[in-house]
C-alpha cells in the first residue's frame, strides 16, 4: 500500500512545462477499496461479484442508454490530442493514462469492444479491448486519478467531459462491488447522520455554542450560530468541514457575521448538516438525490424562505445545477430569490445595497489571490450573468481587502487548475497523487508570489481548503496561507461593539 513519504514532491520551475510521456508513472497509485459494509449501505454488493465482467458490461450498456452525454462522448472523440496537456494530473505526473483522452479510452475501448460493430469485428484496428482483470485494475487506479474537474472539457472541440466518463466508470465499479472506501464510507454517514463527519446533533449544537462564545469574546458582539430554528428566513447548508477544520471555520464565522450585520435571520439544520454531496463523485444519481432530499426536507420542516449554500465547490455544482431537478420544485420558498443561493451571492448583494459596513484595511496585512474552484468555475454560475462565478467572488474579496492580484490568466477563470484533491480523492491513501496534481496551481501561486508578494490564497471550497492546507508545505509554502473568502469578509466587517 501507499506509504506517505516514499515519493518526491515536484520541484517548481520558472513556468509550467508539459512533461514527457512516462508510462506507468502512477501505476502504483490507488485508493483503499471499500469494505463490504460501506458498499452495502449504499445498495451495492459488498464484494466483487463472481460474474463481474458480465455485470459490468451490462451496466455500461445501461448507462450509455441513459445518458446522452456518455453516448456522444464515447462515440465522438477523434484523438486530436487537444486535451492531452490539460489535466493537472498529467502535468504533475507525466503518466499517459492521466491524459484525459487516455483516461476516457479505458472505458471507451471496452465500450467499443462490446457495443460497436467496428470493435466487435476489428478490435485491434480501432483500439477496442476486453474487460479483463488488468483493465479493471486500470479502471480502479486511473478513474481514481481524475478529480472530475472538467478542465479537459473546456478545450475539447466536442466538449467531451472526462468527469462524466469517470463518474460512469465509478458507478460501474460500485455495481460490481469494487467501491472506493473514502467516498462510500462518507456517503453512508450522510445517509445515517446527515453529514460527512458523522457528527450527531448534540455534538453539532455543542460546537456551535462554543463558536458563539469565541466570537463574542473576540469582537464583543453576540453573533449567533443558530441550529434548527423554525421560521428563520434562511436555511444555511454548508460543508461540515466548516464546523471544525481550519481555515474553513473562519469562513463560517464570516457568514454568521454577514447575516448578523444584515439582520437576516438564519439557521443551520441538523438534518441537512452537510452541503457536500459525494453521490456526485461516484456518479450515482440515486445516492445524490437521496442526499439532496435532506435539504428539501429540512427546508420544509423549518419553514424557511430561502436556501443558501456555504463555500463548497462540488456542493455548489449539485446545488446550482442539480438541486432543482433532484429535489425540486421549490415553489414553497420566496420566489424573489434564486434557489439555492450561494453565500457569495448573498454577501455580494448586501455589499451592493450598502447593507454591510466594511473596512478593507482590516486585511492590510494580507496580499491576496483567488483560487477559482473547478466545480464553481466550470459547472455552475453565480449572479444573473454568465461568468458571475468569477466576478462575484473577486468583487467580494476586493471589498474586503486592499491588495488583490490574480494568478496568470491561463490558470484562472474557466481555465482554472484543480487543487488536486477534488472528486473524491481527498484522502490520505492518495497523498502522492494529491501533491503531484497540485503542481500547476502551485506554479501559478509561485508566479504571483514572486511578482506581487502574495501572502494568501483565498478559496470558496472546503475540499480546496483542506487540500491546500495539506500540500502547500510540500512546495515551500505555509499551510495557513490558504484562507476562506468569508474570513476576509468577516474580518473586514465593522461592528459597533455596543450595538
Amino acid at each position, binding site marked *: 500500500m501507499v506509504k506517505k513519504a516514499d515519493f518526491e514532491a515536484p520541484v517548481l520551475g520558472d513556468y509550467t512545462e508539459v512533461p514527457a*510521456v512516462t508510462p506507468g508513472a502512477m501505476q502504483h497509485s490507488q485508493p483503499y477499496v471499500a469494505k463490504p459494509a460501506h458498499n452495502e449501505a449504499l445498495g451495492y454488493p459488498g464484494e466483487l461479484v463472481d460474474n463481474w465482467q458480465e455485470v459490468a458490461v451490462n451496466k455500461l450498456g445501461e448507462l450509455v442508454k441513459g445518458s446522452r452525454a456518455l453516448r456522444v462522448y464515447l462515440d465522438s472523440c477523434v484523438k486530436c490530442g487537444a486535451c492531452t496537456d490539460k489535466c493537472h494530473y498529467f502535468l504533475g505526473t507525466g503518466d499517459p493514462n492521466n491524459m484525459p483522452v487516455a483516461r476516457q479510452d479505458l472505458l471507451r475501448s471496452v465500450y467499443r469492444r462490446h457495443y460497436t460493430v467496428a470493435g466487435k469485428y476489428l478490435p485491434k484496428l480501432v483500439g477496442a479491448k476486453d474487460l479483463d482483470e488488468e483493465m479493471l485494475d486500470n479502471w480502479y487506479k486511473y478513474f481514481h486519478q481524475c478529480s472530475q474537474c472538467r478542465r479537459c472539457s473546456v478545450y475539447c472541440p466536442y466538449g467531451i467531459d472526462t468527469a462524466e466518463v469517470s463518474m460512469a466508470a465509478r458507478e460501474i465499479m460500485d455495481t460490481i462491488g469494487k467501491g472506493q472506501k473514502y467516498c462510500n464510507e462518507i456517503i453512508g454517514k450522510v445517509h445515517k447522520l446527515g453529514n460527512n463527519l458523522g457528527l450527531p446533533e448534540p455534538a453539532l449544537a455543542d460546537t456551535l455554542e462554543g463558536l458563539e462564545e469565541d466570537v463574542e469574546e473576540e469582537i464583543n458582539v453576540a453573533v449567533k450560530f443558530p441550529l434548527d430554528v423554525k421560521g428563520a428566513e434562511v436555511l444555511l447548508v454548508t460543508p461540515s468541514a466548516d464546523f471544525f477544520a481550519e481555515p474553513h471555520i473562519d469562513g463560517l464565522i464570516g457568514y454568521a457575521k454577514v447575516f448578523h450585520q444584515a439582520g437576516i435571520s438564519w439557521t443551520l439544520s441538523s438534518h441537512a448538516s452537510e452541503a457536500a454531496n459525494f453521490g456526485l463523485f461516484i456518479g450515482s444519481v440515486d445516492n445524490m438525490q437521496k442526499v439532496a432530499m435532506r435539504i428539501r426536507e429540512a427546508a420544509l420542516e423549518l419553514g424557511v424562505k430561502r436556501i443558501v449554500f456555504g463555500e463548497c465547490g462540488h456542493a455548489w455544482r449539485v446545488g*446550482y445545477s442539480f438541486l432543482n431537478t433532484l429535489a425540486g420544485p421549490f415553489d414553497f420558498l420566496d420566489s424573489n430569490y434564486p434557489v439555492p443561493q450561494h453565500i457569495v451571492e448573498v454577501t455580494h448583494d448586501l455589499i451592493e445595497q450598502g447593507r454591510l459596513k466594511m473596512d478593507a484595511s482590516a486585511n492590510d496585512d494580507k496580499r491576496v489571490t483567488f483560487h477559482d474552484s473547478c466545480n464553481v468555475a466550470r*459547472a455552475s454560475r453565480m449572479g444573473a450573468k454568465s461568468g458571475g462565478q468569477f466576478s462575484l467572488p473577486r468583487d467580494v474579496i476586493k471589498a474586503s481587502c486592499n491588495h488583490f492580484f490574480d494568478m496568470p490568466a491561463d490558470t484562472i477563470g474557466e481555465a482554472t487548475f484543480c487543487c488536486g484533491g477534488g472528486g473524491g480523492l481527498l484522502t490520505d491513501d492518495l497523498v502522492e497523487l494529491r501533491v503531484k496534481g497540485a503542481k500547476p496551481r502551485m506554479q501559478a501561486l509561485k508566479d504571483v508570489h514572486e511578482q506581487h508578494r502574495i501572502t494568501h490564497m483565498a478559496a470558496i471550497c472546503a475540499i480546496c481548503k483542506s487540500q491546500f492546507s495539506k500540500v502547500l508545505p510540500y512546495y515551500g509554502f505555509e499551510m495557513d496561507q490558504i484562507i476562506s473568502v468569508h474570513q476576509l469578509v468577516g474580518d473586514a466587517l465593522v461592528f459597533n461593539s455596543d450595538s
Partner: protein
Amino acid sequence: MIISVILYLAALVFVIGVGRKIYQYASTPAPLKIPTTPAPTTRGGVVLRMAREVVLFDSLFKASKPTWIFSWLFHAGLLVALLCHLRYFTDPVWGWVNLIAPLSKYAGIAMVVGLTGLLLRRIFVDRVKTISAPSDYLMLMLIIGIAATGLLMRFGWHTDIIAVKQFALGLRSLQFESLPGGILVVLHLLLVAVLILIFPFSKLLHAPGLFFSPSRNQVDNPRERRHVTRLVKDHGQKS
C-alpha cells in the same frame, strides 16, 4: 457499373447508419444539466456558441494553435471542395457553383496541407502518438488519398470531365452510366466510397455528435427552469 453499385451501397449504409446514430443521440435522455460554464443563459446564446464551435472551432483554438490551424484548414478545404463538386451534379451548373469553381484546387491543397500537419503531429508529438490507434493513421491517409487523387486530376493528369459529369448525373437519376476510363477517377471514387461507408462506425461521428454534446448545447438556466427527465425519479412534492 460496379463502381455505381459500390457508391449506392456506401451511400445507403451512410444514410441508414448516420440516421440511426442521430436518432439514438436525440432519443437518449440527458438527465442532468451539465453545460460547461460559463455558458449562455439563453437559447439564442447557445446557438451562437454552437455556431462558433462549428465554424471557428472555438474550443480547439483555445487548446492548441497548431492542431487548430491544421484541422481548420482541412475542414474548410473539405467544405469548399464538396461545394465545388456540385458542378458534377447540377445541370445547368448553378451560378454560385461556377463562381467558386476556381477555388477547388486551393481547397484541395488546403486539405492536403492540413491533413499532413495532423498526421505529422500524430507521429511526432509523443502525447498524440500514445493515444493513436492504427485506425487514426489510416483515416488521415485515406482522406489524404482522396484529396491527392482529386488534385492530380485537376493538375493535368488527363480526365474526361464531360464523361465524369455524365456519370455523376447518371448516379443522380439512378441510371448506371459506365465510368469513363482513368484509374485516378476510379481510385478517387473508391476511396470516397470507403470513407462514407465507415462514417457511421467510426470517429467520423464527431460531426453529428458535436450538435448533441450536452456540455455545449445546454442552456445555463437550472435555477430559473426546472430540468426534468424521466430518468431522475420525480418526488413530485407540492408544497
